[in-house]
């Protein structure tokens, strides 16, 4: 099997997952932590980094299990349960490893890791990779790109919200309301990337 075109495709998929088809701004996945945890820049960076890492690894792991375990056994409908268990187990495992080997990293990422289990972006990326029939290399690129896209969006949002902290906002619009409007404007801006990648 020739591997070069696959790497090229993985690269294209990765870039498009970051910009043109951002998992948060065009598929609405992972909105709850996006609204809840975007008040501070520092914590949003921590959460974003954790998402990049977990998303890349679980996408790859789930691809392997889906194609080598579920498909031969014709248990495809079982994938929801398997994906969510893998994600939960992986998060738990990563938490233990980080706690054991790097207390510094644990301090920065520790509180965010359990939150990731219920982040729909992770499960969403895993389901998209099945629906779109990606090969393994492309799946890794897709997981990485989606994670980076989510990271970019939440860090940008945290910075904007930091600037808005002292402004007067109508009472009904405070909190989630204004966040959603900013997200809408960001989504508009990201639409501008459409067409950057020819041959998508």
């Amino acid at each position, binding site marked *: 099997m020739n591997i070069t075109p696959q790497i090229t495709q993985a690269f294209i998929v990765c870039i498009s997952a970051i910009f043109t088809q951002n998992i948060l*701004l*065009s*598929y*609405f*996945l*992972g*909105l*709850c932590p996006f*609204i809840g945890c975007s008040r501070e820049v520092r914590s949003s960076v921590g959460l974003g980094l954790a998402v990049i890492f977990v998303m890349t690894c679980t996408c790859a792991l789930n691809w392997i299990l889906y194609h080598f375990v579920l498909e031969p056994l014709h248990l495809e*409908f*079982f*994938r*929801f*349960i398997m994906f*969510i*268990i893998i994600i*939960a187990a992986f998060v738990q495992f990563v938490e233990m490893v980080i706690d054991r080997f790097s207390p510094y990293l644990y301090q920065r990422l520790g509180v965010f890791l359990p939150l990731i289990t*219920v*982040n*729909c972006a992770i*499960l*969403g990326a895993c*389901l*998209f990779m099945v*629906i779109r029939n990606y090969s393994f290399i492309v799946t890794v690129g897709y997981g990485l790109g989606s994670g980076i896209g989510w990271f970019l969006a939440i860090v940008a949002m945290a910075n904007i919200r930091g600037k808005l902290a002292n402004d007067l906002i*109508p*009472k*009904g*619009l405070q*909190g*989630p*309301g*204004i966040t*959603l*409007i900013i*997200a*809408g*404007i960001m*989504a*508009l801006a990201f*639409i501008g990337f459409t067409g950057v990648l020819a041959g998508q």
Partner: protein
Amino acid sequence: MAKSQTKELALEDLWSNNPVFGQVLGICSTLAVTNLVLNTTVMCAALIFTLSFSSMSVSVLRKFTPRNIRMMVETLIIAFYVIIVDVILKAYWPQMSESLGPYVGLIITNCIVMGRCEACANSNPPARAMLDGFFNALGYSFVLLIIATFREVLGMGTFLGFAVPYFSSSYWDKWIIMVMPPGAFFMLAIVVWIFRSIQIASQEKTK
């Protein structure tokens, strides 16, 4: 359960503690399908089914579930009902299943389902838990249907696929942005704004 209690529960879940504009939970997986009223209706029906029955099941099993693995048990119960919905849709309505894509499966990680299981079903008898789940899903659905109606009428000039008189004619410039992702964010923000302002105003009045 007394009738007045049911009414109180319904009022709380539909209005004062509504999942969308009160708790702001679980908007992720369903916002994406609100550009068509039909898709939203199917998605909301799926959510009502999942939330009612998983709340009930969690409540029935609450005395037998060890505390430290209860999140995992809840997730598995929810996933079980979601798989039922997914299989039924695939068998009887394959086009709908295709156009909803991964979003049916994403009900599993919809925060509102997990949230209700944790907040209510864990500590209440099955009948109450089921009603709580049902009314929460209903409160969630009605807000999403409002959003879907505006998005479809303004963006495509149709309602449930049928042409709406004024909006589908050449007098109306279709707001394409409404069916695209930013439209969903703006519509949801406006709905949250309006409902919250009404709530704040009525709270100040009672003071």
